[in-house]
């Protein structure tokens, strides 16, 4: 191909992407920390109902920085996250704007939204402790138990620095203070069967392989693994346990959404956020992703419901998110991942 042709082609490509920002009058732009293909079915429903086109950009790192740098020109209307710390980080850097919406207020219980309406949780997920069904069976267990000497060499987990684990550590700090949390974290590290590695699914697989007896993992992964032909045998090798039922309640994290400060399609964005908090989308979150819907009247999926009722930690998420940095630093101090 001649260089001339190549440049013509690249110019055309750039022109096309620029044009795509302006040609659709009715659209809404999403920066998503959540995998695009998990939320695409929900977005298709939204487009079907409202005629508003949804543009998604998925990335697991750096989206907050991108919104920040783009400033008043940012095309993003909403940011979807998988974790409370990112919601708080967006809010604290003044990248969001509040939404006053009756619908959101009635759909989302108050502990799952920002007091100033800057962020809204859409689903909740539990940090469970999986146990080997063959060697242990279902157990009544606490996160604190994981530090006991009899668990030595029996625990698997992903990297401590993953947001899900950081949040768990932050919640322990919020409940027991930093000094106690450090002792706890050091003992858990000493009990690990192997260096933290892989993702939550890989820990369940490790239990199946007999490398460890207990694994930390979010609840919905069990549903996902049961639906995957290769991973179903991993899932069947474990029992799901809700920790801290007789004490503080299980640690719960959220996936959530914010409206960006300079959202160019604000009205559409609010429509989308309201849609996400409403029956249809909540149902889909529950059925497709095995998460717990925030809307009280929407039931979890049959499978998730079969795991039973549980008591969730009542400490407000915002309190836990405040300990995020302390948790990261603590993980470094005890060299959890090394």
């Amino acid at each position, binding site marked *: 191909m001649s260089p001339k042709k190549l440049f013509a082609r690249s110019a055309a490509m750039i022109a096309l992407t620029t044009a*795509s920002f302006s040609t659709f009058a009715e659209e809404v732009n999403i920066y998503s920390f959540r995998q695009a293909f998990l939320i695409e079915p929900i977005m298709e429903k939204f487009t079907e109902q409202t005629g508003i086109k949804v543009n998604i950009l998925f990335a697991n*790192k*750096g989206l907050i920085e991108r919104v920040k740098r783009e400033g008043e020109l940012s095309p993003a209307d909403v940011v979807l996250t998988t974790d409370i710390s990112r919601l708080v980080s967006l809010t604290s850097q003044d990248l969001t704007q509040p939404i006053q919406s009756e619908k959101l207020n009635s759909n989302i219980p108050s502990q799952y939204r920002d007091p100033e309406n800057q962020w809204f949780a859409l689903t909740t997920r539990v940090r469970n402790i999986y146990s080997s069904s063959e060697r242990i069976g279902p157990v009544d267990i606490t996160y604190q138990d994981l530090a006991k000497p009899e668990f030595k060499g029996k625990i698997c987990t992903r990297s401590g620095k993953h947001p899900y684990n950081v949040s768990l550590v932050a919640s322990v700090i919020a409940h027991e203070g930093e000094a106690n949390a450090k002792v706890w974290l050091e003992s858990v590290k000493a009990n690990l069967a192997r260096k933290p590695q892989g993702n939550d699914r890989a820990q369940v697989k490790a239990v199946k*392989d007999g*490398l460890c007896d207990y694994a930390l993992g979010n609840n919905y992964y069990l549903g996902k693994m049961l639906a995957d032909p290769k991973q179903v045998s991993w899932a069947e090798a474990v029992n799901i346990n809700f920790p801290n039922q007789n004490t503080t309640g299980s640690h719960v994290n959220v996936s959530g959404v914010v409206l960006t400060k300079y959202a160019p399609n604000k009205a559409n964005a609010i429509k989308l956020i309201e849609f996400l908090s409403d029956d249809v989308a909540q149902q889909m979150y529950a059925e497709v992703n095995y998460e717990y819907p925030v809307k009280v009247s929407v039931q979890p999926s049959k499978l998730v419901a079969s795991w039973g009722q549980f008591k969730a930690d009542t400490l407000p998420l915002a309190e836990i998110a405040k300990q*995020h940095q302390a948790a990261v630093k603590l993980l*470094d101090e005890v*060299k959890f991942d090394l």
Partner: protein
Amino acid sequence: MISNKSWFYKLLPWGVTFLLVMPIIALVMSAFSVDESSSFQHLIDTVLFDYTFTTLKVIAGVLLLSFCFALPSAWFISCCEFPSRSILQWALMLPLALPPYIVAIVYTDLLDFSGPVQQFLREFMHWQSVSDYYFPDIRTIYGAMVILALALYPYLYLLLRSAFLGQSGGLFQAARTLGLSPFQAFRRVSFPLSRSAMAVGLSLIAMETLGDFATVNYFAVHTLTTAVYDTWLELGSLTTAAKISSIMLLALVIFIGLEGHSRRKQKIYQRSGATHTDLRFELIGWRKFSVLAFLWGLLFLAFILPLSVLIYYAFSYFAVSLNAQLWQYTLNSFWLASIVASLALLIGLIVNFYQRLAPGLLAKTCIRLSSLGYAVPGTVVAIAVLIPFTHLDLWFNRQLVEFGFSRVGLIFSGTLFILVIGYLVRFSAIAVGSIGSSLEQVAPSLDLASRSLGQTAGQTIRRVNLPLIKKGMLTAFILVFIEAMKELPTALLLRPFNFETLATYVYQFVSDEMIEYAALPALLIVLMGLIPFIVVNRLLEKAS
């Protein structure tokens, strides 16, 4: 009297270098802004030492292994004759087309506890559980070294092979007639003569290793890149992240500078006369078999085995992974990689010819600066590129409003433009390096002869230099093309809405440990990298 045109040619290399280095400068500058989170001190107090030590260890291990893989292969291919040599000479480059993190996943699947290898061993030896036997864990620093070396050794192989081929075989023969054994002649003549190529190859590998995140992260090995991501994403301090990146870059610049300094007096040019090609010695007996075993074994581990696993997965999950969008993603990847490779080639030519026509410290600086981005992890490059271009966009739009026009939005940082820039910042080093090392072998006396026969500098470049470095140019194009096909983190963060490349598509599945679903698009990445590679090889073979 200096004409306008000559000014243009003087400024061009600096313009290009500025474009590539501006994001890095922006990043370094943000390292000096005030940081209230004190997270740098926190890192020093806790894990920075461990991370630094691990990083050095990984780099040393990868360099050593790559050296052990590449040097013998390049030597045997260039200077010995044995069956299947003509296949191996290009096949040994194929591992470049495989993204290292995919190779890492494939090997982990094969070798971990539930993988087929250990399963077979357990059944064969009647072992029951983990405690009954020892099997090396692949998810360790050593696993990471081996996988990275298997994926990266071709850079060194490629450069060494062309260095050996370019050397005069007469020198080697002379050494032999003066009583040296083949090994001595290699050690004392051929090896020192290939030092420049070796330096370029090893520094490319070191940079790539330093910039890698996906592979080491998969193996739970924590390097300085981990520190960069932790401080930036979890502690929210871009300043500290920038500081660590800057220190890494500084160390790299010093290291490369020292290496260049130590061979500043060495100048080697191609001479006419018998090359190694004419004087290859035929291997026989056990020598032949051990060389064949080494080369085919290397190729098997680095390419054939991982590729076969991918093909197997792709076939068993063909129906679920084949969909209409796949074709679009392939096209996206292809065009993007072609554009990036062409521009990188152009950049490589511009800065290298600047160095040739006006050698000196300035030109050298130009080359060094334009290559820095290669050592910076992809996501950090992405942010570094966003810093200046979002500023430019904001400024431009405010100007438009000032003059009564409506805003046009993010025309630089919100389009494919920034993605192309991001790739160029990251991969220009490859083009600059490989063109540089082939241009270095063209004797300046040829330029002088051409100029004294009345040709202008431009005509000399066109009629003398370019034809002589055609091979280097093609190599540069292909290497950048393949890298661009594989690149993930830059694409993930900088792409516009609804734009997927094969790599970003693969990642969606890989991040959920669903390698089987990712196998087909991953194979497409490999195939798309292989096609230009094979075509060019054919062209080169015909030409010679």
